[in-house]
């Protein structure tokens, strides 16, 4: 099918197009140079923004942890549900929406690619089964490898290449996309109910430190030529004073970066930008982090913005979740996974009137505004940890308008307001910068060649928003910007129009992207590995890998490794 998006203001930062009025031609699911204008279906985008489909680098949308969150929170669903229509399936929200609803809601906002950042390798099949039930958007998932016994043991012995081969095997057999580290070392320590306190604290029984794990996996990442960097949730997350750990984490791989290329992605940075000795003296550490990031080119990060709402926190960081349970007294789920990782869930309500929550809200925005290069920091809420993804339009408004920030700042805790850096920041982002932070930059950081831009040959994932950049000043009319980003005028996925004015037109299945990491010699299951399998896991090695049968729409990406 041919499609022509006419007369829109196109924002395509990866191809250097900044609000030019032009047509985008689509044929067979790809962007092409031109189509037969008489035959093609035309979409009139005059007076509207045309951007590549949104890309979300970090959003917990599927898998065992998310599903436990759904199970834990019926009260979250009662207030928010979507009935079945002749086209769509029914479902529920709010902070942990059911699978179908997740797909529809992302598509309605013009998002077409979402990465689930935490997959316990043993339970990878679950993530992929849920992916099959998330319609429209393309997905991928990062296996949690930072506390995997294989990694700890091989890194301790300095056998980087072998470690890399096992990591390659793991990524391919769990159909994963990147190496995810969560509180490296801390999760193994949590196995007996403890935690590591910093980068140089030893992991009990394994004689290895978080620093060694991070550096080791960074080297592995390079050996395997993976498209994304290591994706790191730092140690000490959610503790006052942890901005030091975040900066140290970035510093520790400084020498491993090549030719100004990123070597590390610090995820939901807001949660690790706390200054102060305890919750009462909590302050923003965003300036220190921003200064470091502005001076270095090897790190990217995402915001993890806090939204004032009732949400459900879920991370693989078991000890952090336990601390959050002790802090809040809310219900708590813990789920440790043998030899690999752990996880926890605690419902949480961010309140405007709470000093700590208001400071957190401020930190996220400060980071996004103080880091000068939008290619280094991306917009996320770490859904659902900072807030549900449906709040993205609000964040866009805050980033684009000083007035919008001021309106919210007026309502927050006064002590937090007086300490916030936001009043001193005049920067207001433009549509091009928003396009970078919500799609182009994320796609670039992920190494997704066909996503996040509208160049010829790219996937025809397009979002059209009903706001005119010539007549609308986002700084003043932030409400109409927010409205436009909440409901895309049109979302086009693989050349098909799937959303029109916020209404789903088609229920199409989105693809699951995964890395087929090809090592120099194909990895065979050795006797040693079989033995370890028997000792380490309670399942047989034949039943461990995710077969292609589990991926309804499979999109493998071949990667040639150097080992």
């Amino acid at each position, binding site marked *: 099918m041919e499609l022509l998006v006419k007369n829109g203001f196109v924002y395509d930062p990866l191809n250097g197009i900044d609000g030019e009025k032009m047509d985008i031609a689509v044929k067979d699911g790809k962007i092409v140079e031109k189509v037969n204008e008489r035959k093609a279906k035309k979409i009139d985008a005059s007076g509207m923004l045309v951007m590549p489909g949104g890309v979300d680098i970090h959003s917990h949308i599927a898998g065992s942890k998310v599903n436990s969150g759904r199970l834990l929170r019926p009260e979250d669903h009662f207030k928010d549900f979507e009935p079945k229509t002749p086209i769509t399936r029914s479902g529920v929200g709010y902070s942990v929406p059911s699978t179908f609803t997740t797909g529809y809601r992302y598509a309605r906002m013009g998002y077409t690619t979402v990465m689930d950042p935490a997959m316990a390798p043993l339970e990878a099949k679950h993530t992929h089964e849920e992916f099959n039930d998330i319609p429209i958007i393309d997905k991928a998932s990062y296996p949690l490898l930072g506390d995997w016994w294989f990694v700890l043991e091989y890194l301790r012995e300095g056998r980087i290449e072998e470690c890399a081969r096992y990591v390659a095997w793991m990524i391919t057999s769990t159909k994963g996309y990147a190496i995810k580290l969560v509180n490296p070392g801390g999760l193994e320590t949590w196995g007996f109910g403890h935690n590591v306190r910093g980068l140089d604290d030893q992991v009990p029984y394994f004689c290895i430190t978080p620093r060694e794990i991070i550096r080791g996996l960074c080297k592995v990442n390079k050996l395997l030529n993976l498209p994304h960097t290591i994706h790191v949730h730092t140690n000490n997350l959610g503790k006052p004073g942890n901005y030091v750990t975040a900066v140290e984490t970035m510093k520790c791989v400084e020498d491993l970066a090549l030719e100004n290329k990123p070597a590390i992605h610090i995820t939901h940075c807001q949660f690790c930008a706390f200054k102060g000795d305890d919750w009462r003296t909590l302050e923003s550490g965003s300036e220190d982090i921003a200064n470091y990031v502005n001076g270095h080119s090897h790190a990217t990060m995402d915001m993890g913005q806090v939204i004032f709402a009732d949400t459900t926190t879920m991370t693989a960081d078991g000890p952090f979740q336990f601390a959050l349970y002790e802090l809040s007294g809310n219900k708590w789920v813990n789920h*440790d996974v043998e030899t690999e990782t*752990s996880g926890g869930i605690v419902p949480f309500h961010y309140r405007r009137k709470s000093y700590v929550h208001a400071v957190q809200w401020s930190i996220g925005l400060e980071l996004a505004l103080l880091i000068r290069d939008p290619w280094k920091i991306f917009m996320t809420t770490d859904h659902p940890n900072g807030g549900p993804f449906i709040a993205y339009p609000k964040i866009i408004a805050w980033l684009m308008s000083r007035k919008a920030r001021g309106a919210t700042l007026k309502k927050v805790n006064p002590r937090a307001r007086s300490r916030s850096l936001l009043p001193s920041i005049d920067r207001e982002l433009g549509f091009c910068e928003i396009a970078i932070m919500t799609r182009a930059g994320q796609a670039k950081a992920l190494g997704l060649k066909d996503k996040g831009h509208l160049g010829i040959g790219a996937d025809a994932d397009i979002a059209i928003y009903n706001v005119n950049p010539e007549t609308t000043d986002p700084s003043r009319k932030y409400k109409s910007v927010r409205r436009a980003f909440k409901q895309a005028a049109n979302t086009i996925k693989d050349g098909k129009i799937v959303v029109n004015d916020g209404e789903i037109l088609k229920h199409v299945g989105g693809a699951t992207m995964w890395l087929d990491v090809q090592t120099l010699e194909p990895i065979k299951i050795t006797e040693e590995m079989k033995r370890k399998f028997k000792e380490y896991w309670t399942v047989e090695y034949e*039943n461990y890998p995710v077969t292609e049968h589990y991926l309804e729409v499979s999109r493998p990406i071949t990667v040639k490794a150097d080992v």
Partner: protein
Amino acid sequence: MPVVKAVTCPVCGSLCDDIELTIEDKEIVKVKNGCAMCESKFLNYNGKHRIRKPLIRKDGKLVKATLKEAVRKTAEILAEANYPILYGWSSTSCEATRVGLELAEEVGGVIDNTAVVCHGPSLLSVQEIGISSCTLGQIRHRADLVIYWGSDPWSAHPRHIERYTTFSEGRFERSEWRGYVAKIKASIGRKKIESVLRRLFLKKKPTVPSSYLEGRVCPTISREGRKLIVIDVRRTKSAEMADYFIQVEPNKDYELLQAFRALIRDQELDVDKVAGVPVEYLEEVSDAMVGCNFGALFFGVGLTMSRGKLRNIDAALSLVRDLNTRTKFIIMPMRGHFNVAGANTVSTWQTGYPYAVDFSLGYPRYNPGETSVVDVLMRKESDAALIVASDPVANFPRKAAEHLVENPLVVVDPHMNATAHMADVVLPSAFVGIEASGTAYRMDHVPLPLKRVAEPPRGVLPDEEILRRILSEVRKIKRKKQVAAEAQ
């Protein structure tokens, strides 16, 4: 003879996946590694109770029909019903449950799985308290204290202790198998001595120490290594092998749990006995709980379905949660059917709720007690039912079963069970995990693939395929109705 390795056993929630089957002439002739239940299923599944042809009730009798007729009839029943029930799901694959949920949404019915009469209270309590849990391998590697409460793994999950808990070999904890063998030998020796003494003196039997009625109870409880505690209303097979057995009075689990909650906070109890157990013994056990490195509490239907139901589980979950401030402790329900966890999981990701989901308003509603199948039946609200891989007529309260069979009833099952005998349409299905592949979730939510190792009888389809056909037939009927309505 071909040997199929790493087969997942479709019997209980332990979901052992190391079964080796020897196949000869397309039949399973030998089972290796399996327990008695596993062997019996793999070797006898194709017995005389097998249904081989679809059946439809005509003039009060079930007569053979073609698959097409049976599917058509089922679709008519479901499409015409106002408030149908779709029940079962725990002994089939997740793939089938997925289609079942779509079907339930299409016909606007109530979909519920067997958790409602089993671990439903556990799920309600998790929604109230949360749960500190892990995968079974974590227990194998780390647990030095294992408690089974209201559950008899030796009989109901025969390989649970050997594969995942006390008798398994972990990285940080050794297997207690040898200790157990020594204990058995000692007890045999003791019996021999007793019989010798009896013969020598020809007098009355010397008194045998019985559980905790004798001085200091259990020297083993404070020893190093893995300890096994069993808490139950009767001395089960599992209790025989435990280091420590507490016999709780029936229906008093809640009191005992709350007593433990007080004791682990170092509070003193003002009574001598709780639930029939002297407090000093409870103190010893609570010391063991607080003093362990990694404790695991497994609970069974003995806790969920005795008096108090979800309140018992509330107390158990809270106990474990509280223990986590002192040490590392986890809790896990002993799920019965091999894929009951999977049925809950699929239902949760599609609808947000684990069981008892009502689609009658076009979106998922959940209110156990109102939307759970037994309650719907007791209130006589449903007007048709589709039962997949379950036997409610044999298990439900009589009144519920009576209402179930009064209305049109369709059964999809490999067996001619009690419900199938009362049904209006019976659709034979292939055995999931033997004749049909799929996915099942272990009790700790680890997904495992089920293998197809044998051919189903001719013309017999897997649940998933049967449900797909019913769904497409229902949609056809609905479309016709719509067209007819528009024409008028």
